[in-house]
Structure formats: structure tokens, C-alpha cells
């Protein structure tokens, strides 16, 4: 019962929020506006994929947004200032975020440090490297190819950004792996009962390491989407995404205690945040209140998780 509710609850919240904003603003439900919501959500949405994997193993990655910013700076500086071809620059940028994922994973699995502390450390390290490498300057004059995913096409008069398609494809792929493959089920098992997973022969540290590395890859892809969306490499990007990604995952019904949740829930969670921000903006509500409401939503989501778990015992 609580399981079913856990999966449907976030979706109902999204529908309710959408209905509410539709009654408040005529513009909310237009195709163009929903397209804007998706564009605003696409970066944090992709980060949330990696964050979901980490949280499913009962970990957490606080460094996600700043690592993404590092990836964005690496790929834009290479392309704009060193004349590296766009595909290679993008690959190196994703490589940089993947290395950070590897670092997080190694510290968690080899030295057995708590993920919270590890990623709090790498958050600061990534931020500092980003600032130093970029001299705290925004990187501009990017080659056209860097922005390709920011391009659009039209579906029945509605503008769709390629980046949104990339995000949706990544969600579909991750959902498939988590649901339909042994590797995916092992992620759940490791988060749910690591001892049981180990005793059944699952290489628990390898699963956890893989999850942090894959998360690093998603941050790199998010970096590319962020560059494509803004047209620049911004060393101060990603700061709100650090917590927004965790917010999206939690709002989407994934338990911070690990082993429970779905990646599609995180998409719904990211959309809930996006819809609230967009809807409140349309209503003319100041952005401080948007942050306030996001905070309340997160606490509500975690409280629901906690209470439903208590009920299950």
C-alpha cells in the first residue's frame, strides 16, 4: 500500500501543482510555457539521475552541481581558448566530472568515509579548481557545436530543445537498467541491506564505486546541457543544483536511507520544483518565496518517507 503510494504520490503532487497554477495563470498550460519548464529542468534533471543512483545505495552526493560546473569550465575553456575541437573538449569535460565521481567512489568504498563528508569535501575542491582554472571568469565565444543541444525543433507548434530529449532518453535508459537488469537490482539490494547483498555474493564496493562513477558521467552530460542552454561556461553555475538535485530525488519518493525509489520519480521531483518556480514566477511571487516553498516541500517529502517506513514495520 505504502509502496504504491510512494510511486504515485509525487506524480499526484505534480498534477495538483499544475492544476493549481493553471487556475492562477492562463499562460501556465501553454505549450511554450511547458517547454520553458522543461528547459529549466533539464540540467538539474540530468544531475538528479546520477544523484538518484547514489542515494539508492544509501549514499548522497553533495558535490554534484559544483562538479558539473567544473566540467562546464573544462569543456568550454578547451574549446574556446585552446582551440580543441568541440567533441574532444566535451569528452574531456565529461572525463573530468567522471574522475570526480571516481574520487568520491574510491573515498567512500576504499577508505569507508561517509558519503556526506566525502562529497562535502569534493564540493569545495571542485569549486576551488573551477574558480582557479577559470580565473573566476565566464568563458564565452564558444564554437557553435558546443551549443548544438540547445537547438530546437517543433512538435505541433511547441518548441522542443534537443537537450530535453537527451534528458528524457537518459531517464528511460536508467529506468530500464534499474528495473530490468541484475546490475540495477543490485543497486537496490546494496542500498537496502548491504550485508545481505554481500552475503549473496554481490561485490558491494564495486556496485557503490560504479554508482559514483556513473553519477560523475551524468554531471558531465549535465554540464554540456548547461553550456548549450546558456551559451557560456559559468564558473558559478551549479551552486543551486547541488541541493536542487537532492531535492528532486527526495521529492520523487526515493528514500535517503537507500534501497527504495525510482529514477522516474526524480524526473517528477525535478518537474515539481520546476513547476513551482515557473508557476510562482507567473503569479508574480518573489523568488524568496519559491525557495521557502521548496524547503517546505522537501521536509514534507522526507517526513512522508519516514512515516510510511514506520508504518511498514
Amino acid at each position, binding site marked *: 500500500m505504502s509502496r504504491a503510494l510512494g510511486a504515485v504520490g509525487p506524480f499526484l503532487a505534480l498534477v495538483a501543482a499544475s492544476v493549481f497554477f493553471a487556475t492562477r495563470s492562463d499562460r501556465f498550460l501553454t505549450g511554450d510555457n511547458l517547454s520553458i519548464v522543461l528547459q529549466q529542468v533539464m540540467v538539474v534533471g540530468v544531475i538528479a539521475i546520477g544523484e538518484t543512483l547514489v542515494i539508492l545505495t544509501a549514499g548522497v552526493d553533495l558535490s554534484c552541481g559544483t562538479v558539473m560546473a567544473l566540467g562546464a569550465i573544462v569543456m568550454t575553456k578547451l574549446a574556446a581558448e585552446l582551440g580543441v575541437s568541440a567533441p574532444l573538449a566535451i569528452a574531456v569535460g565529461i572525463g573530468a566530472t567522471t574522475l570526480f565521481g571516481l574520487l568520491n567512489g574510491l573515498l567512500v568504498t576504499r577508505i569507508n568515509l561517509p558519503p556526506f563528508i566525502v562529497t562535502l569535501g569534493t564540493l569545495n575542491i571542485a569549486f576551488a579548481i573551477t574558480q582557479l582554472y577559470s580565473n573566476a571568469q565566464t568563458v564565452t565565444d564558444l564554437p557553435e557545436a558546443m551549443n548544438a543541444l540547445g537547438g530546437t525543433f517543433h512538435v505541433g507548434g511547441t518548441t522542443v530543445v534537443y537537450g530535453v530529449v537527451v534528458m528524457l532518453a537518459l531517464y528511460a535508459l536508467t529506468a530500464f537498467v534499474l528495473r530490468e537488469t541484475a546490475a540495477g537490482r543490485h543497486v537496490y*539490494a546494496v542500498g537496502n541491506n548491504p550485508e545481505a547483498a554481500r552475503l549473496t555474493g554481490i561485490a558491494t564496493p564495486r556496485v557503490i564505486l560504479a554508482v559514483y562513477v556513473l553519477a560523475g558521467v551524468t554531471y558531465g552530460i549535465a554540464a554540456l546541457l548547461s553550456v548549450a542552454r546558456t551559451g557560456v561556461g559559468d564558473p558559478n553555475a551549479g551552486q543551486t543544483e547541488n541541493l536542487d538535485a537532492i531535492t528532486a530525488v527526495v521529492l520523487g519518493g526515493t528514500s535517503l536511507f537507500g534501497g527504495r525509489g525510482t529514477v522516474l520519480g526524480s524526473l517528477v521531483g525535478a518537474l515539481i520544483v520546476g513547476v513551482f518556480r515557473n508557476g510562482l514566477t507567473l503569479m508574480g511571487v518573489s523568488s524568496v518565496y519559491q525557495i521557502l516553498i521548496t524547503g517546505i516541500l522537501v521536509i514534507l517529502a522526507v517526513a512522508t518517507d519516514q512515516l510510511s517506513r514506520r508504518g511498514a514495520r
Partner: protein
Amino acid sequence: MATANATTVVMEARGLVKRYGHVTALDHSDFELRSGEILAVIGDNGAGKSTLIKALSGALAPDEGEIRLDGQVVHFRTPMDARRAGIETVYQDLAVAPALSIAENLFLGRELRRPGVLGSVFRMLDKKKMREDSTSHMRELRIEIGSMAQAVETLSGGQRQGVAVARSAAFARHVVIMDEPTAALGVKQSSMVLDLIRRVRDRGLSVVLISHDMPHVFEIADRIHVARLGKRIAILNPEKISMSDTVALMTGALTPDQVAPDALA
């Protein structure tokens, strides 16, 4: 002794020694498990029974001594080694993942993939086959559970233990080791698990049962291995010895030469 020739020994250990610093947890302990029997291993705290079981299940490597399975010397370095040799262990703390389904728990770490390209390229799990196989395993052991897609956390303690036992029974080829399988359970659920252990034996597997619960031991054990101070001091026939004498042996109040010869198995 007349039956000893007729029964084959499945698993055997000679002179096992395990030291932790100055503590000798196993002091030249022997072990013998016969085909199709339930062998209870009992002993006071510190008697070395859990160290013995860990050595047999691959959770630790003994410093000295040898373990034979079907007459062949084996060296288990990890529980996986033991499992590959056909020895399954049911751990005391219910090694199941509560949020996963019964079928997922039964096949955890040994998932079946779909035939053809879907399985080999896309690595897709054959969930239907795993559910069907789970149903037949559970039915074979007469564990009554509605749906294999149900999460383990929705089950009672006895049913959860049933899942753990069924997993071991389904994959074991020789031996199932059960560490205190009734410790966390109520009276009714305990008797369900005891029935289950009998059925596992009746399927031809040999069962090693570690238990503190003397009534349970006497209810289902074919023979009783008594561990004391890191050694095996006696193998008892539960039909020929009283529970109080068994406890006296375990605690050292009686010595093996003080019990009737026919009580020794």
C-alpha cells in the same frame, strides 16, 4: 557404528585450529556431517561453534587442519567459494533485502537473464521465470505465500526466514548450514521453520543446525555435535541421552566418559 559404513560422509574436518592472538577459538576440532542428516552443533558461548561454522561456510580460513567435501580437500577463502562447492548458509540475521520482492531475494546475486538477444545484449532479467521458479521452490517446501512479487518486508518473521531457507535449499547441492534459524521467532513460527528444515533434509540435503534451543535440537536433530573449549568433545544420539545430560556435557559438568556408551553416536 554399524550404520557408519552404510552412511556416506558429505563433509568432514580434521584438526581445525583457529587462533585470534592469544585466544584459540578452534583447538584441533573435528567435524563430520553425513549424507541426508540434520546435525545439530551445540556449545556454550566461546565453545568455538561459530568459528567452526565460519570455517565450514568459507567466512574464515582456519590456521591448521583440513576440510573435505565428498572426500576432496577444499580450501574456502570466501563464502562464495563454499557456495560454488554446493554449501549454502542461512545467516542468523535474516540476510534478506526487505524492500525487494521474494523472487528477487531468492535469486539475488544469481539472477536469471532472458534467453536470446534480450538477455545477452540488453542484460534483461527473466522476471517471469524467476517468479515461477520461486513459486515452485516455495511450494516444494510448503511455504504458503501468495505472490512472489510481494516485498519481503510485508512478510512475518517466520515467512522471511522461510525465504532465506528456501533460497539456500534451492541452490545448495550438498549442505545447508543454518545459524540459529529460530532465534528471532515465536513458538508457532519456530515450528514452521523446524518443519521446513526437515523437508530440506528429506530432499536429500545435509543440514548443519546451530542452535541454543535444546528442545528444538532434540526435536529435529539426527545427531548432536557438542563443542567445548574449541574441540568436539562428543557426538550424541538424541534418542539415547537426556536434555539435561547434554547440557551438562556442554558446560563441562559431565565428561563424555561419564555418559552411557550407546548415547554416543
